[in-house]
């Protein structure tokens, strides 16, 4: 398994899909049922109740042997990042796994982190939060892009 599973939560949420897939650290990243007005996904959400402890299909849920497990392949969707297709595994009506079947080539490649760096760094999912801040650090914005920047908005509030 690759060390970094591409974090498709935001993309999936934007596509109106239901996602809950595992990272290499064993934590599940879950996004709830979505609509067009889905809020930004958050990291560290607890896995769906009843989700099996492993993504291995050989690990049967302890609660039931009769539960119907099935997989559904999503449509191959081309978004601004490239082609994305996912396979969703359901236990009854609960999503227990999402696998990426197709990913844009450079996204796949960019996910690779070495076995050396992986254990020495900490991994988390990207989050989007709006919060009370005094100022902003970001890649250098030009005079033009400053006008649309969050820092510009903060400055408008701060200039007295």
């Amino acid at each position, binding site marked *: 398994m690759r060390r*970094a599973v*591409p*974090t*498709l*939560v*935001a993309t999936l949420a934007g596509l109106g899909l239901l996602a809950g897939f595992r990272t290499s650290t064993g934590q599940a990243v879950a996004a709830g049922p979505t609509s067009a007005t889905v809020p*930004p996904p958050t*990291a*560290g959400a607890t896995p769906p109740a009843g989700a099996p402890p492993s993504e291995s299909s050989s690990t049967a849920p302890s609660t039931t042997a009769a539960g119907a497990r099935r997989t559904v392949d999503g449509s191959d969707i081309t978004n*601004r*990042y490239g082609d994305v297709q996912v396979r969703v595994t359901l236990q009854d009506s609960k999503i227990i796994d999402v696998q990426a079947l197709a990913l844009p080539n*450079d*996204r796949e*490649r*960019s*996910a*690779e*982190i*070495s076995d*050396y*760096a992986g254990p*020495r*760094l*900490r*991994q*988390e*999912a*990207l*989050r*989007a*939060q*709006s*919060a*009370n*801040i*005094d*100022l*902003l*650090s*970001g*890649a*250098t*914005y*030009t*005079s033009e892009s*400053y006008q*649309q*920047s*969050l*820092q*510009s*908005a903060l*400055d408008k509030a*701060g*200039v*007295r």
Partner: protein
Amino acid sequence: MRRVELVWGSAISIELRDPADVSVLDEVFEWFDLVDRLFSTWREDSEITRFANGQLEFDALDDNVVTVLELAEILRIDTNGAFDIRATAALPEPHGPGWCAIDPSGLVKGWAVERAAAMLERFGAVDFWIDAGGDVVTRGTAPTGKSWRIGIQHPWQRDVVAAIVSVGNGAVATSGRYERGEHVICPRTGEPSRGLASVTVVGDDLARADAYATAVMALGVDGLDWLANRDDIDAMVITDDEVVWTTPHFARWRVDSH
């Protein structure tokens, strides 16, 4: 008091909590103008341009230019050549692995902002920050009485942040490219160094923090190996595929729950 001016093709914002004469900020922005005249690679008459063209001898350089060139050399060695301001000049031989073209303006900016912070402190200012196009120096405390809260820009959503750090006396530098498909080309290999959307470094010196962030950004995913060897650097990296990697000590700056 807050002042925003467009300098170096970017915006510099200064927040000064202490009651101070406006002339203090005038002097700081005059300093930034001087830096532009000395270091702008866009100006044919800047010292750095004339030095690069061989029109100005090293011995004739302004002390400020010599200081920055020396700092650049220290950081080149410190980053195993990943940060090299000479990379934009024509060089006879390629450097070692990971050598990539880097715009030196970030180093100049970081250094100049640190000098500006020292100027404000000499005037007696205690609680303030300077944000130079997304690279930040802070001193003292916010009106809440606590350290300043600095948001780290989310790469693809302009109005939200990816993390929040709390810094009293310190610096936060972020290097990044927020447009997907926009690549940094490594002239040594001709291949794009990609995989990273942004690199943020928190530390006690903006010039150094900016050099580290720029070096990791140019190295791409390989920069994570370099970071993994440096437990003295507190960094947060956002990859193109929306995974966040942080160095072990970065957590001490975080104030968001994570």
